């Protein structure tokens, strides 16, 4: 596991935690929960840029390259989709939807690490 994974682990868990608590407190999605999901997206963006730099500088991907990029691109689609989905209906349940993003991103990042090394 590399630093990129640990960044997403930390940001993802914090984001999921914030959204989960907000959902339990019966809050609708607000700036805090939506920004926490945006932070997950940012962490994935850092992973993307870092990975591109590593590939250009000649570092090999141990597993299937297309599988790695597929995971990364799919993971990056999740936060915007969840935010859009949560803005459509502003109830506590949308916060639980947002909470799912951090956990999912972290699982996918773990898988991406396995593919890379």
């Amino acid at each position: 596991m590399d630093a990129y994974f640990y960044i997403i682990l930390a940001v993802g868990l914090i984001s999921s935690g914030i959204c989960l608590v907000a959902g339990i407190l019966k809050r609708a999605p607000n700036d805090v929960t939506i920004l926490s999901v945006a932070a997950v997206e940012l962490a994935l963006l850092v992973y993307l840029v870092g990975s591109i730099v590593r590939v250009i500088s000649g570092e090999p991907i141990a597993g299937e390259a297309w599988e790695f990029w597929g995971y990364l691109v799919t993971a990056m689609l999740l936060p915007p989709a969840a935010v859009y989905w949560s803005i459509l209906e502003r109830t506590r349940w949308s916060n639980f939807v947002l909470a799912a993003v951090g956990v999912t991103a972290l699982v996918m990042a773990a898988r991406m690490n396995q593919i890379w090394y």
Partner: protein
Amino acid sequence: MKAPNSEATPDKASASAKDTRNTGPGRLLIAVYAVFAISATARAGYQILTKFSEAPLAYLLSAFAALVYVIATVSLAKPGRTWFKVSLAAVLVELVGVLVVGALSVFDAVQFPHETVWSLFGRGYAFIPLLLPILGLVWLYRRRPGKRPATAGG
């Protein structure tokens, strides 16, 4: 992610008049189903394209599971009685699938490498595949057509 179009999201007043299952807790359910639909489809596609001959039966089941998740996701997001029946069928098939494939993967590890969504009762996915159909059935029961009260889930 193909976020189901929610033009059909009714305002609170008409929520009871239409048979919808995409409000409140249903949204979380649909979101989780969507994630599983995407990941199961991608995984099955990958397995069938790269190593189909290793365990054809398991990978065909992988593809079948993916299809069930896609149907469940779409049907839960759509209003109406017909879609309710489709949801019910999909969720029931899913429940049977996870139980049968789970059992087979325990007893017949050769035919079933532990690589489908439903293997070992979904252990590779934190048992969510086992939990989803149960939650799905509860939700469908609460939102069954012809039910009067307009409580939008608590």
